[in-house]
């Protein structure tokens, strides 16, 4: 697990920007590389572009053959107006936001506390517990859907926010990542405070957490994205359309008026917009966060 060690090191959160020397000499090679890179980037952006253009067409143009990037009847925001007019998207976006934020906060809080305990507190059963938590990383949550749903029936939590949120809070890999980070914080910093009589919680709050800001934000970013985009569990536990998250609502609720291509793409883009806008503003932090938590987080 060497890669985990290096990628969780605080040092690596500043990406290297220095370039290898002597590259400029290979002019032709660099141009070829640039061409390939441009082709790949265009390929990767193409689905977005096609979705955007489709969403700006009238339904008649979107469903016309032969297909075209142009809209004979002109580009229009009609599809967006219709989709937003149905009133579901804002509700689902709110549910996504609410559940993702609560999941992120609860995950960070519980995992950080547990990670600190594993890193610093020599309590009875620590090693054994840590082993169980780490071993549990191998369990794919997908195989637990049946018993978990049954359990939620018993808790009367099917079709509730609680049923949606609580099972998503368990994130053993995050405990692992945070523990690794806490391990590196010099113990002397805490010792000084303990001499002054501060208790563990206070030390954790005033010394450890502020020092851990980079890793905490990395974990938060990762957990938030995962929760925002999660499909399987929210899909299983929520049937009430007014409690659905964006991915679930988009998949489940159909238009009474049949397949409408422009509206489909408008909905997809509206659902994608929040995270993409967030990404445009915080590209560096998000990439850093993913690279930092990546190996442990998947």
């Amino acid at each position: 697990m060497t890669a985990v060690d290096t990628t969780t090191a605080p040092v690596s959160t500043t990406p290297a920007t220095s370039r290898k020397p002597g590259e400029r000499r290979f002019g032709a090679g660099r141009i070829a590389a640039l061409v390939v890179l441009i082709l790949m980037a265009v390929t990767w952006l193409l689905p977005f572009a096609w979705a955007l253009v489709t969403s700006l067409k009238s339904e008649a143009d979107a469903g016309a053959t032969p297909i075209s990037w142009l809209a004979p009847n002109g580009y229009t925001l009609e599809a967006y107006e219709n989709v937003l007019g149905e009133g579901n998207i804002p509700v689902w976006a709110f549910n996504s936001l609410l559940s993702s934020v609560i999941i992120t906060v609860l995950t960070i809080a519980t995992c950080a506390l547990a990670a600190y305990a594993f890193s610093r507190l020599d309590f009875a059963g620590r090693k054994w517990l840590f082993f169980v938590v780490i071993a549990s990383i191998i369990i794919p949550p997908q195989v637990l859907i049946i018993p978990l749903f049954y359990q939620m029936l018993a808790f009367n939590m099917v079709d509730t926010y609680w049923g949606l949120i609580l099972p998503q809070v368990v994130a053993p890999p995050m405990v692992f990542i945070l523990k690794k980070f806490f391990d590196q914080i010099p113990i002397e910093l805490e010792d000084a405070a303990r001499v002054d009589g501060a208790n563990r919680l206070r030390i954790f709050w005033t010394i450890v957490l502020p020092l851990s800001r980079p890793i905490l934000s990395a974990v938060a970013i990762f957990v938030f994205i995962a929760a925002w985009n999660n499909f399987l569990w929210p899909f299983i536990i929520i049937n009430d359309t007014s409690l659905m998250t964006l991915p679930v609502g988009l998949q489940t609720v159909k238009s009474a008026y049949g397949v409408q291509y422009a509206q489909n793409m408008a909905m997809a883009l509206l659902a994608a917009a929040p995270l993409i806008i967030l990404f445009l503003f915080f590209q560096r932090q998000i990439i850093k966060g993913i690279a930092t938590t990546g190996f442990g987080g998947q």
Partner: protein
Amino acid sequence: MSDFHRLSRRTVLLGGAAVFGGAVLGPSLAGCSPLGAEGARPLKFWHLLSGGDGIVMAGLVDAANEANPEFHAAQTVLAWGTPYYTKLAMASVGGRAPDVAIMHASRLPGYAPGGLLDPWDLDLLEEFGVTEADFPERIWEKGIIDGDLFSIALDAHPFIMMYNTDVAEQAGVLGDDGQLVEITSPEQFLEVARAMQQVTGRRGLSYGYLGDGAQMWRLFYTFYKQQDAEMSLEPGEPAQMDEDAAVTALDFIKQLLDGEIAATNGDYATAVAEFVNGESGMFFTGVWELPTAVNAGIPFDAQPIPNLFGTPAAYADSHAFVLPHQSEPDEAQRREVYRFVASILKGSFDWAGAGHIPAYSPIIESDGYADLVPQAHYASAADVLNYDPPAWFTGSGSDFQTYFAENVQGVFRGGDSREGIQGFVRRLNVLLAKPNPVA
């Protein structure tokens, strides 16, 4: 928990606005509050009807809402077939199901016995003017499981035959009444079809089935039941099927799919296009394609699929209202559901416009309906309709039809009929050997 739930529901609009920002959302805020007039009870209504059906249903719901200030029903449309039925079952078992939903009547045996549905109260129905006498016998009975009424049919939608009247006339098979001559045997049907094929120069008959188990099953079961054959699927016992009748039906279908009378490898969309473009004379299809044919503007009429094997029979299913199980049903709320369903039934004349045969007899018996052509010409199918053999795994959009396709598609394309049907029976026996999960 419920406080949490309520609180957040109240802030939904604000929160949603915060996510998207004013610009995009501006024009839509007005559309955000679907709730109706003051004091109207909001009803959650699920169905799986989209396209033409969806538009008509939306109209029926709007009309019912307008006529009844007591409630305001909001419809949610889910993807047709398995996704819908899966979600409906999960919602019912979760206890916070929608107030009312539409199901295919053929799916009842997979829902009602397991407690996924609540039975209808006949007295309350009568109070809103809906009684057994208002429905054709076969349709009403299909809603009864173990003595309780679990579904109230909105319609029957049989598998029927449309035909191009111009083509029929040129082929000399149109009777004096302007309708197709009565066809009473497989041989005669082939003759008529060939005559029509001569006229169009393309096909005599359009029928699409490729990759579509439901389509294969609909035609097969029509011809199977026309031979007065039985099929019974009892859990714990092998499937009871009349193999010879099944082979006869399949052999006849193969004769039709000879590449001349009908395409050997036709899919659903191609068959529709063929018929509405006048490239064929006859068309085996569900009544729900009626609006497509009407919109295409071709001269056509429709009738039940001709009785070729002695017993009049039509494959059919019904869209039916059910009460998904709720752990704590609110009596006053349920009352409004009854009012809503009664109102839709009484206003279901427009539903015939979507091709379906309204199940509520006063509609069928009304003067207006008799003038509806071609609807009135196939309404008699309602008396001879046959639903899927009841079992927890059968019905529209079920795995049953998928298994049929897996074994029989090869037959339609020229394989051996007996082998195909035996393979299907073997598959059914595997299912029947498993314990019934809703018993």
